[in-house]
């Protein structure tokens, strides 16, 4: 693996002193993150019609995200493991709190108003759920037994149901994906995987009855967008036109007529992938995709080098969940998946998700930077 040779995470003291590792910075991770966010800001500038205010806010969010990255990178994995249950139950508590008290933003109860900033507790769960699953399996023998699987299902589904109730089906599915990936990495048998997958499919009709009308409408629209060109189908039609008209090389930066003329909805948030595809074409989108894959690859490499169950499961789950975010967003914008309102990680304008993702990569940096080098 070529990324393995990019082993730059040498701190000033180089791990010579036992117990103190100095300042941990995983340079490959950091460089790729900078590249993606930089590219994202270029696209965002065009998406918001060259209004700099939103761009400055995005830069500030990235700065906060970097802070979270560095803080997390300094916390050794066994400390991360210690405060995992606290973080998980805090997250559940906050979800219950917003369900009762939360401010209504965009018709859904998701936001917690902290006075200065609003904060989505469901974002916290995106990290806390895989962490909790990894924490649970840490002391136990892999692969997990059936009762242990049931406990982990409870760990995943409790917050997921609370988030579905908000209602925020997209985030709920991502939380389930995060927990599910952790469980898969823990080594659940292929046979059980098939059985559970079958059960999952059977549960779809049940899920359908729990879905809100607007969510059902999105699925119908996904199946036949032209049925409602003035309403919900509008987004996906315009998004496909934007992507398709980009061609191989794109129409050029700031030249996207779909996005510039306001045809494209939510162009600074959920649909920014379409702006990129229109202005930079297939090549530009592939460049972004390669950067994302590099990030995921680096994450999986870190997971493979990790030295305990918790670190290993957490690193693998965070990396793969990140890919799920990318795939779901790109898939929905290009009409492969129904529109579930998932932002493009590190690129879409938006606060909480930027911070949680950066914090997640901070944990990866920590896992790699705090390895005991004795064995090597």
């Amino acid at each position, binding site marked *: 693996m070529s990324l393995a040779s990019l082993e730059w995470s040498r701190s000033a003291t180089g791990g010579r002193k036992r117990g103190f590792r100095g300042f941990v910075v995983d340079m490959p991770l950091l460089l790729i993150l900078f590249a993606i966010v930089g590219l994202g800001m270029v696209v965002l500038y065009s998406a918001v019609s060259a209004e700099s205010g939103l761009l400055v806010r995005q830069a500030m969010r990235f700065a906060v995200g970097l802070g979270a990255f560095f803080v997390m990178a300094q916390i050794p994995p066994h400390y991360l493991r210690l405060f995992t249950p606290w973080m998980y139950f805090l997250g559940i508590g906050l979800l219950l709190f917003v369900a009762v008290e939360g401010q209504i933003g965009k018709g859904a109860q998701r936001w917690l108003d902290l006075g200065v900033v609003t904060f989505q507790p469901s974002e916290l769960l995106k990290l806390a759920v895989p962490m909790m699953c990894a924490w649970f399996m840490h002391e136990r*023998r892999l692969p997990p037994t059936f009762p242990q699987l049931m406990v982990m299902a409870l760990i995943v589904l409790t917050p997921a149901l609370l988030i579905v109730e908000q209602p925020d089906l997209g985030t709920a599915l991502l939380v389930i994906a995060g927990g599910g990936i952790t469980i898969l990495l823990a080594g659940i048998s292929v046979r059980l995987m098939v059985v559970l997958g079958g059960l999952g499919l059977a549960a779809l009709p049940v899920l359908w009855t729990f879905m809100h009308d607007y969510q059902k409408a999105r699925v119908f629209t996904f199946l036949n967008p032209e049925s409602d060109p*003035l309403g919900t189908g509008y987004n996906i039609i315009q998004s496909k036109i934007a992507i398709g008209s980009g061609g191989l090389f794109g129409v050029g930066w700031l030249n996207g007529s779909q996005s510039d003329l306001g045809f494209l909805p939510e162009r600074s948030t959920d649909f920014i992938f379409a702006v990129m595809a229109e202005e930079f074409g297939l090549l530009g989108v592939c460049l972004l995709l390669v950067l994302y894959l590099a990030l995921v690859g680096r994450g999986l490499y870190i997971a493979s080098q990790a030295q305990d169950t918790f670190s290993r499961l957490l690193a693998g789950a965070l990396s793969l969940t990140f890919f799920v975010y990318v*795939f779901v967003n790109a898939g929905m914008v290009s009409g492969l998946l129904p529109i579930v309102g998932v932002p493009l990680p590190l690129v879409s304008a938006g606060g909480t998700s930027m911070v949680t993702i950066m914090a997640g990569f901070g944990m990866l940096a920590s896992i790699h930077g705090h390895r005991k080098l004795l064995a090597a």
Partner: protein
Amino acid sequence: MAGLQFKDPWQEQRLFLSRVIAAAILVLLLSGVLVTRLVQLQILDHERFTELSQGNRFRIDPLPPTRGIIYDRNGIVIAENRPNWELVATAEQIDNLDRTLRSLEALGLVDPAEHDELRKLIRSHRGFERVKLTNLTEEQAATFAVRRHLFSGVDIQEALSRYYPFGDTAAHAIGYVSSISETDLERIDRSNYAGTSHIGKTGIERAYEDRLHGQVGYRQIEVNAQGRVVAGGARGAGDTGEFESKSPSPGENLVLSLDMKLQIAAQEALGDFRGAVVAIDPRNGDVLALVSTPSFDPNRFAAGMTRRDYVSLNTDPDKPLFNRALAGTYPPGSTVKPFIALTALQHEAVAPEHEIYCPGEWRLPGQTHRYREGRGGVHGNVGLHEAIVRSCDVYFYQLAVAMGIDNLSSGLTAFGFGAPTGLDISGEQSGIVPSPEWKKRNFSRREDQVWFPGETVITGIGQGYVLVTPIQLASAGATFAARGARFAPRLLLGTENTVTGEMTLLEPHALPSIEDHTAEHWQFVSDAMVGVTSETGGTALAQMKGLEFHVAGKTGTAQVITIGQDEKYREEDIEETQRDHGLFLAFAPAEAPRIALGIVVENGGGGARAAAPVARKVLDAFFAAENYVASEP
């Protein structure tokens, strides 16, 4: 393997690695799917999408449905749609929104005070949507027409706008339409309102918005690079395979129970007073007239008024926007006496022939507080019949104490006081029917929760805590007239399908009727109410003289301020807004009632003087129109 209970790190690491490798392969596969999809969109279908996006830009124009027309019960149009010019903007075709708006302001087409609001309005719509900025006069339309080429993205179009031919008459019942606000957007299906600029805000226009509005249609039109239409009409479905056009389906026409002639007569009868008149048909709950004065001209809302005009309307001390008929709550005064008398008879708290001596005031046994006659009269010996005819307070003080507050309040509640009547437009207040339980519920301090005997006394003459709305008064009068048969008052009689012309009539909304009273008791109290308008000493005798039929009525006077124990109410000493409210409750003809009235004249100075004359004029208008001939008994 199943028996091992300790961790095997090497085995676990191998298992984990195999999973990571599998995951990595899956990641690459999914990426492949994504890239394949992008290749399909961006390479294979590139030309088609480019054409859609660039070459022949097309626009989906929503086709707004025509709003339903509103008729009165005789088919007279009270809300319709008239063609007029409006200025519209399409955001995607405007280079610089601020500059464009300023140029329009310089031409006097747009109000500079609304600059920011219009900007926000345009921004809140999708780029391709046409947004209505304002209505234009013929002159303004001409001014713009010659300069049209200077304004890319701004255009004039002929449109239908709401028009209320009767102006301020019945404005509170019909309500009005006005520009769709941010709050409205929350509660409507946005795509159904894509081409609609106005929405019902109050009254019938709001309550039946769904029926009136109809379903939006749309058509796809081709436009050139500047956004001008090059070929109107729908492109064939086979051309792009994307869209079709769809005609809008117009809203339903509504037929209301209102009788506009009666409505006008009632409004004129109130004159310059603040007040309300509600007329109800006791046989079915049809609201024949619903007046609240002063009124306002709903056309100003439909045409769009400046912020300053709206503020002045909203801050007018006479509150023209306030619907007194539904939301004004007043002490009912003596108008509750018929209901209390009926309840007292039911509970045998009094025998009809029981007489008392009225010296002009009364004390509760063992107390010093004097409860006085409203206007300081001395009635001498009176029975229940005379007590209603001459409105003797002393009689009803004792009646209230004899029957007790619980019977009294449940008697009033049975007639619909203390709760909305269920009229089919919103904005009704509940009013108050006090009782010991009510005090417990509505006062937080313990010492305030105690029910005092004196409070029972004054409730007996409709003073104290008790509050009613004019529509409750009319509705209770209608229930009385129908001898206990209750209907929720209604404004909507039926709907007309605008396409098929088919009329659908609605059934009256019957409520559980009042079965507590004997026919003799109904007759006794009804006779006393007829006495009010026909016997010597009757409080409304003078106002109802010369009618060819019997009117059952009851005057009421509601004190706005408290008069001290030894003071006298002297109107000339009191501010106009502190003077007594005049109330009147009536139904006619007493033998076979077809109309029940609830009337409040704010600060009119008493029921007989202010409200009864209004009732007379309304009754004259009603029976003149009906060519009423009194049937011999």
